């Protein structure tokens, strides 16, 4: 073969390799786009919601001023809806008409009246939640929940301008609920935040202290080697194992309350601890030895050299490792199964020992419910979870760029 032909062959090989590379990137991007688009389209119905605005007469006969909590607010709301359709009189028809309302239709009214008891006896104009089937119909989706008459009533209300479309604040401001139109992610979001605070408060100092000792102070002997190998292996242990460990140790031996962010955070701290130790050691190792040696040379003690010079320079690497570890913890469900955080919890947690659930668990729970509207809530929660993870990764990149030093 001539020299020229060989060169041509090498160029061809290079072109082929580039084409393979491009194809690989193309396929990955296509998968990702398809996935995100699919989720985004499914999530759409969740972000907007139809509400009826009705003027309700707060009848003092039904709402006792002495005990306004026990009042029949739903009854008042149903009356206000019936007033829109004076020709609907039979009991069965009235029941069908009320069927377009949410079980929580009167929640807004109740809050208004409880906050301001002087409203009793007056007319109040409030937004009234429709049930998820009615909402889906108004958004143009097929639904088996409504009869043709109910659809006609909804069309009539829409024509009268009683029904309007708005941003679904319920989704962001409510805890979990069995009614899709009332279910929100606030409880899971706060649960996630509380859990991650416990995880960080425990895993960061422990991880950094362990890494510092192993990297800078530990004698080099077989015991240190065994510990090192074990930490590396621990990073690859399936997460469910940590859940079982948490059940056996934290719940059964120490009696930490079940389903709480405290026990969830403890388990997740164990999960991310190896990751943080490995990342921190790598960061400490990457600090040039000349810096430490210079400090030792001017008379600093070993500890001073490490704490004054090595650790500050390793912080960007440690932070990046920690944030990536925490991002992993944020997406875990399996270890939480064992410690009772896969649960229906309506009340938004107020502290570390209140029952709580977390975002990925909320995705898991909603994806398994039969109501159509929960499918779109699942997708919307996935988007929110992705955004949170995205923010965490962006923070890691920012910190690295901000504090990075070159030698």
């Amino acid at each position: 073969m001539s020299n020229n032909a060989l060169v041509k062959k090498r160029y061809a090989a290079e072109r082929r390799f580039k084409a393979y590379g491009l194809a690989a990137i193309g396929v990955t991007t296509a998968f990702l786009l398809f996935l995100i688009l699919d989720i985004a389209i499914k999530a759409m119905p969740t972000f907007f919601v139809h509400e009826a605005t009705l003027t309700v007469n707060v009848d003092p006969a039904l709402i006792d001023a002495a005990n306004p909590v026990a009042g029949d607010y739903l009854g008042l709301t149903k009356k206000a809806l019936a007033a829109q359709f004076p020709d609907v009189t039979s009991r069965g028809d009235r029941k069908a008409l009320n069927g377009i309302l949410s079980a929580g239709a009167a929640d807004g009214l109740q809050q208004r009246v409880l906050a301001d008891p002087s409203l009793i006896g007056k007319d109040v104009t409030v937004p009234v939640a429709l049930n998820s089937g009615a909402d889906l119909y108004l958004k143009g989706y097929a639904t088996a929940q409504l009869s043709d008459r109910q659809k006609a009533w909804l069309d009539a209300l829409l024509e009268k301008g009683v029904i309007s479309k708005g941003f679904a604040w319920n989704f962001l401001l409510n805890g979990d609920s069995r009614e899709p139109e009332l279910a929100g992610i606030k409880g899971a979001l706060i649960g996630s935040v509380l859990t991650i605070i416990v995880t960080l408060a425990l895993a960061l100092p422990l991880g950094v202290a362990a890494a510092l000792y192993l990297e800078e102070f530990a004698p080099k002997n077989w015991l240190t080697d065994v510990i090192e190998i074990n930490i590396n292996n621990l990073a690859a242990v399936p997460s469910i194992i940590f859940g079982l460990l948490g059940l056996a140790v934290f719940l059964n031996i120490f009696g930490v309350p079940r389903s709480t962010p405290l026990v969830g955070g403890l388990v997740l701290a164990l999960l991310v601890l190896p990751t943080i130790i490995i990342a921190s050691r790598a960061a400490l190792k990457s600090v040039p030895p000349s810096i430490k040696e210079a400090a030792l040379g001017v008379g600093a003690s070993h500890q001073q050299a490490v704490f004054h010079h090595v650790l500050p320079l390793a912080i960007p690497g440690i932070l990046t490792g920690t944030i990536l570890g925490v991002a992993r913890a944020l997406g875990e469900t399996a270890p939480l199964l064992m410690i009772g955080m896969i649960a229906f919890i309506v009340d938004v947690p107020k502290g570390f020992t209140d029952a709580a659930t977390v975002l990925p668990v909320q995705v898991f729970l909603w994806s398994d419910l039969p109501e159509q509207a929960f499918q779109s809530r699942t997708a919307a929660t996935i988007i929110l979870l992705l955004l949170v993870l995205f923010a965490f990764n962006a923070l890691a990149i920012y910190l690295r760029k901000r504090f990075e030093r070159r030698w």
Partner: protein
Amino acid sequence: MTRLLFAVSALAIAASPAFARDQIRIVGSSTVYPFTTAVAEAFGKATGMKTPVVESTGTGGGFKLFCEGVGENFPDFSNASRAIKKSEFETCAKNGVTDIVEIKVGFDGLTVASAASAPDVNFTKQQIFMALAKQVPDKDGKLVDNPYKMWNEIDPSLPAQKIEVLGPPPTSGTRDSFVELVMEKGAEAFDSLKAMKKEDAKAFEGVWKSIRTDGAYVEAGENDNLIVQKLEANPNAYGIFGFSFLEENEGKIKGAKIEGVAPSFETVSDASYKVARPLFIYAKKQHVGTVPGMAEFVAEYTSGKAMGDEGYLADKGLIPLPADQAGAAADVAKNMTTLTADKVM
């Protein structure tokens, strides 16, 4: 650093004192979960007490937690898609959980469904057994590996389609119920297997409990929504799941008739559709009085506005009990009648 470590240890100490529980805790079946959560929410709204925490652990996992003991660290209720087993009842008794109240709350139908565009079919339990069992009897009654590939090989009246059934994995309570309600009965329809049941009950159990693994039965995971989506995409496949999913996706999928009866609200309720199972909640009577709201919660569950024909649980897909059984359940709830050993099988 020292300050941080300090904060962590302070946190650990703050958490250790025993907590006084003022919130009901419920564990158990994922099938009963959608109903119990609805009741829990209504209970929270109506009474102003803390809304109970409902965990989805599966029936067996639920009983394990429930039977661990009496006290605020142990759950107050367990949801179950089958009755408590003798072994579970004994574990309970051993751990001091002696006063258990069993309340039947309704039925759940199991459906064999297909895409709405697929042809209508009418299966017998025997045909389903022949399609899905690992081993079936041949003409002489000898057990052979399942030879059927097409539905019309089993019976000419069935469509000429490949056998492809999507269903739950062995860990699921739905699968347990399916094999007991359909496969066992289907197997009993063969004379040779009926004889086997008398001679060697263990071997017989092995026959009806073993589902074929050559690809005709696809384990589609615990998530019923997933099966529904796959059916829409593939009109040749059948799926096995709970009745509430059929109802919610009406128009997209339809239920096959079994022994001539199509699954519907009415046919499951009056027991003419045979593939249905009762659902239960179990209450720990020893917690009544210590954990606030136990009696009120049970009263809410068995009330007409929840469990009744027009109640909100019916809207969620629970099939209500016939009037006499509903009355009996309400009585049990009111008097908190405890379960005795002779009633447990």
